[in-house]
């Protein structure tokens, strides 16, 4: 081949490589520095309100649900989605804004009634509630659902276990080992419509637990344990179209036994609901923008490529929202790893960090707002405080050097930063922290671990953290329910420290924090609770074991064919139950 031809070929390939780089995104994703604000209408109002029904609502998931079994799932997207076929004692209203995170009764006639000693919560089921086969929904079905989802960890262990922790159930071993449900004394059912929860300690936010899909009734004779997800018995407006094979498309069709009169929500607009799993992200986004697809069910927002497309096109911006996801990104600083046993050394990290660089690593302001404390703004009790704040949040030379002096290491020290190696932006944020600390002589080695084992085996194993000297640990957290307790208990309470699967990565075990969180759980007055959450937040920040840096935001796109679209503050994504389709 002549040199001329070789040259031409090389030029062509180079051009292709450049195109590849352009399409791949990376760096700052703010769409070329132009105005990056999008419509945001669906954050505060319902877009395209319509009473029309019909059509097939199409969802896509880049991965798959952890389970379709309402008793065995722990992701907000699943909880949002299960409302199609699994009604719960309590749920969240179909309202945008803060009102959307205040529980309302669903299967129950009212919110929970608590006894004077705070130890018994009672719910009464509405009349004429039916499963998809026409049989009555009874209190026993709800009791069974709680028993299987919380007391059979050998089979169902993906969901939260708050009922297991809170209910006075002695040594009950779950319905798969003990088939006499009467032995489950944590929940009693005096009659077919009454359900009583008996707690070890008072828990003021019990209604939030009653809104979890685990309270969706399950008829004992239809339970197939781990296989129940393939054929869930519906209590909601839709039911599975035949038996579902995990990984394959899911189709929901109308449940003819569903009575909308018993439902506080309007969640039966489309005729059919479809979900395709394992869809390639960029292709999924293109289909979303083209209107071939209606919703990305994971609700995490579009990828970098589509983000640029949307931010550069006013028509697309008009159909986009950029809400906070309720997910707080932070670095935990572990006091059990030297030299962080000295608070001043931890403070040097907090003062030295350039949070704007970390925000840039995630994609700029479209990817999140800089966080200055450990509560997301949407959580009641949030206050706009900035302990260890620096001017412009870029770090303070003076304060960092003073902290290093106090720490006894004026020339700096060495430590490790761990991150999830398959999360590119988290890696970039760790690199940004590394660079900002370098100028003070704080040398850090980056250690990446797979996301799949990060919490179970590395960052979430205190023994591993100590052995590998992971002084600074990248992490992120979202609330199990929209309250300070729902957000903070797992990452700040000393009792939540575990040998494996630990989420309290700072290993914070502050008696005052523990006491306040425990007290908040027994305090009825919401405003008093909110004050306690503010206090816990302040104490956690004062411990200098948390370096919050970003209140994450997602760029969500809503095709014009969708109606009744709004951002749910309860689930931190569009409320799927409300969605309908424009009928031409």
């Amino acid at each position: 081949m002549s040199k001329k031809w070789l040259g031409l070929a090389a030029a062509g390939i180079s051009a292709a490589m450049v195109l590849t780089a352009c399409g791949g995104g990376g760096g700052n994703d703010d769409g070329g520095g132009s105005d990056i604000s999008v419509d945001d209408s669906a954050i505060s109002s319902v877009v395209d309100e319509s009473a029309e029904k019909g059509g097939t609502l199409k969802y896509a998931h880049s991965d798959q649900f952890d389970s379709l079994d309402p008793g065995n799932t722990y992701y907000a997207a699943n909880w949002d989605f299960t409302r199609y076929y699994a009604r719960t004692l309590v749920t969240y209203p179909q309202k945008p804004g803060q009102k959307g995170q205040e529980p309302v009764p669903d299967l129950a006639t009212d919110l929970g009634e608590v006894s004077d000693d705070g130890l018994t919560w009672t719910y009464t089921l509405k009349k004429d509630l039916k499963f998809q086969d026409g049989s009555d929904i009874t209190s026993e079905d709800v009791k069974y659902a709680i028993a299987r989802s919380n007391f059979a960890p050998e089979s169902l262990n993906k969901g939260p276990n708050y009922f297991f922790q809170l209910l006075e159930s002695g040594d009950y071993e779950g319905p798969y080992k003990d088939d006499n449900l009467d032995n489950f004394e944590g929940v009693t059912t005096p009659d077919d419509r009454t359900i009583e929860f008996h707690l070890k300690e008072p828990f003021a936010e019990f209604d939030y637990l009653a809104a979890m899909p685990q309270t969706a009734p399950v008829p004992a004779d239809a339970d197939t344990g781990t296989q129940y997800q393939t054929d869930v018995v519906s209590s909601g407006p839709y039911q599975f179209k035949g038996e579902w094979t995990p990984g394959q498309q899911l189709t929901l069709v109308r449940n003819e036994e569903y009575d909308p009169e018993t439902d506080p929500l309007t969640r039966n607009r489309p005729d059919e609901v479809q979900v395709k799993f394992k869809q390639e992200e960029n292709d999924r986004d293109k289909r979303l923008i083209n209107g071939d697809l209606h919703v990305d069910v994971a609700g995490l927002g579009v990828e970098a490529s589509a983000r640029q497309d949307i931010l550069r096109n006013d028509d697309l911006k008009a159909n986009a929202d950029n809400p906070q996801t309720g997910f707080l990104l932070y670095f935990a600083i572990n006091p059990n790893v030297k030299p962080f046993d000295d608070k001043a050394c931890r403070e040097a990290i907090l003062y030295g960090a350039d949070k704007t660089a970390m925000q840039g690593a995630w994609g700029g302001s479209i990817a999140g707002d800089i966080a200055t404390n450990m509560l997301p703004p949407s959580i009641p009790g949030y206050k706009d405080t900035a302990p260890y704040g620096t001017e412009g949040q870029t770090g303070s030379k003076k304060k960092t050097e003073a902290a290093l002096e106090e720490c006894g290491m004026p020339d700096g020290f060495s430590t490790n930063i761990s991150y999830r190696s398959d999360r590119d932006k988290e890696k970039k944020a760790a690199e940004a922290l590394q660079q900002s600390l370098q100028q003070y002589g704080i040398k850090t080695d980056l250690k990446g671990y797979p996301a799949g084992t990060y919490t179970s085996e590395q960052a979430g194993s205190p023994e591993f953290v100590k052995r590998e000297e992971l002084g600074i640990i990248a992490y992120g957290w979202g609330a199990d329910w929209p309250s300070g307790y729902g957000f903070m208990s797992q990452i700040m309470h000393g009792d939540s420290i575990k040998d494996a699967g630990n989420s309290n990565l700072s290993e914070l075990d502050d008696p005052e924090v523990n006491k306040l969180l425990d007290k908040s759980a027994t305090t009825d007055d919401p405003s008093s609770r909110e004050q306690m959450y503010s206090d816990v937040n302040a104490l956690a920040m004062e411990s200098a074991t948390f370096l919050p840096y970003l209140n994450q935001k997602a760029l969500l796109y809503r095709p014009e064919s969708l109606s009744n679209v709004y951002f749910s503050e309860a689930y931190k994504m569009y409320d799927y139950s409300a969605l309908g389709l424009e009928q031409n």
Partner: protein
Amino acid sequence: MIRYILRRLAAGVVLLLVVTMVVFAIFFLVPRLAGIDSDGLAARYVGKSPSPEAIAAVKERLNLDEPITVQYGEFVSGLVMGTEYDSGTDVIHCDAPCFGYSFKTNTEVWPQLVDRLPVTGSLAIGAAVIWVVAGVSIGVLSALRRGSLLDRAAMITALAGVSLPIFFTGLVSLALLSYYWPIFPPGGSYTGITENPLAWAHALVLPWVTLAFLYAAMYARLTRAGMLDTMGEDFIRTARAKGLPERTVVTKHGLRAALTPIITIFGLDFGLMLGGAVLTESTFSLPGLGKFAVDAIRGNDLPVVLGVTMLTAAFVVVCNLIVDVLYAWVDPRVRVGA
């Protein structure tokens, strides 16, 4: 001949056993050597905030406290003799060959592999037809018209085909031929051949061509090189001297001799592809074995990774065996067992 095939099959079984050992060691032995205890391993199979009771229950269920040899023995025994899993309410019988049970998705692995095999098979066979026909034809024409414009254009295209990654060509083809000009359906539109053969083919055209572009390029270069060598051989001159038509000289004598290395590499390529064309399946959201394996690796779903790896290894072994048998037919100089 039969003895030879049996001997090769026996060697294949040994190979598969070694594959299971290696994959099993990667998932269970290596983490232990890295200091991960059985609690950590069990935490892989529970939710994001597991209780100690859940971890203890999973450890017991998966025998994670047993020695690694016992765990491996149980896996192999399940593979050969089948095994049983407890769903809570029932016992699930996993008949031999039981490739295990995914505790991530709570499903048996084998039916999932069987579900995905037609997708990967459809992709691999269609693409293979295109790349073999196109690659070999272009390679032959290039060799016969060495130095011509056709030769140069073909080889530049081949160079581009080899150099451009599938996720690039795939996404570009989707952007142009699916979104800009909606000629082909977007990704994620796969329909089974039994449901609707037309929709099946329509959805697979872009993946076929994208995948075939890469391989056709390699095969064209390989064929061209082989043909150039062969066409200069004495027996070709003899064939021409005997007055055989040029078409016969090229196809019966030249191409036949040049095909041997191509068949060898085709056996390997096709066998590997039946185990999943990872990038193509991911780019076009095709629910095949490759994407299944990648997702399983990301999710630490050992039984699925083992299943796909073993299936891929089996395909490679079988395809290689077929290739060896084909040698005798293609090239009379080769005699099996010689």
